[in-house]
């Protein structure tokens, strides 16, 4: 049971950091890959110790695995269009080329980014790993700033 209480305490702390802190400033929630994997792992650990919630725990662990494999951000509080706009502005600010094809974007002829609307103002941003140029990496940093500059 002590695993449950430790996991629950960590879950509350991470929820405050990831959700309460930005939303209290009326800013969107943006959780990057490592944070998202950690958050899911903590939630899975907390639910795993509760026998009745074990199926949820396994589902969350599977989600964490996919987040780990495919570089992914979780975004809450802004629309898919606002995220696309932030990406275009970031590419423009860093003078990186941006192509819109196959329902996604290609930055600096190098890095593929897709924006998936889950529901309402919840979206997932996925990045195809490997071979990112320095400019593409910088564009991703600026992209994150521009998403977080919106007000919810």
């Amino acid at each position: 049971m002590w695993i449950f209480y430790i996991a629950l305490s960590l879950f509350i702390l991470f929820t405050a950091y990831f959700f309460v802190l930005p939303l209290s400033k009326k800013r969107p929630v943006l959780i990057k890959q490592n944070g998202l994997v950690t958050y899911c792992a903590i939630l899975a650990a907390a639910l795993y110790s509760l026998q009745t919630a074990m199926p949820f725990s396994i589902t969350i662990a599977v989600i964490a695995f996919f987040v780990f494999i495919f570089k992914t951000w979780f975004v809450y509080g802004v629309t898919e269009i606002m995220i696309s706009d932030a990406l275009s502005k970031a590419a423009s600010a860093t003078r990186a080329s941006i192509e819109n094809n196959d329902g996604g974007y290609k930055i600096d002829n190098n890095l593929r980014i897709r924006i998936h609307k889950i529901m309402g103002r919840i979206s997932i941003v996925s990045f195809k790993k490997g071979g990112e140029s320095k400019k593409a990496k910088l564009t991703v940093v600026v992209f994150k700033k521009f998403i977080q500059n919106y007000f919810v």
Partner: protein
Amino acid sequence: MTKASSSITINKPIKEVFEYMASPHNGPAFIPNLNENENIFPEKDGVGQKFDWRFNMAGVDLRGKAEVTEYTPPTKVVIASHGDADSTWTYTLEEAGAGTKVSVEIDYELAETALQRIANKAIISKIAQKTTEQMLDNLKTILES
């Protein structure tokens, strides 16, 4: 006042480097931890141009207002800012062969309220130095490739 400085050579003409670097619109693209410059007025870059900034230092949001106090194309820009951190940013550019040598000097002093929110003053000094080095590296990446 504490100081952080750095310089780099960018293989682009001085005019192009100056125009990009001197515009507050481009600040968040190459200055690490500068989240946004907003309410930029007037639109045209030059002495007297003012804007609001929001900077994140060690997880703490710092805010303030800035004003361009010196604008000498294509060699020098000085920006004075006040708020959670009082600072003066001096960009100096000089031709270096076909490229441009860019130097940045930041004189800064954190307001006590902001400093109280950040644990260790030594860490701030390291972050400021790292910021100047990283911003010039970013500038080189943006303008050269």
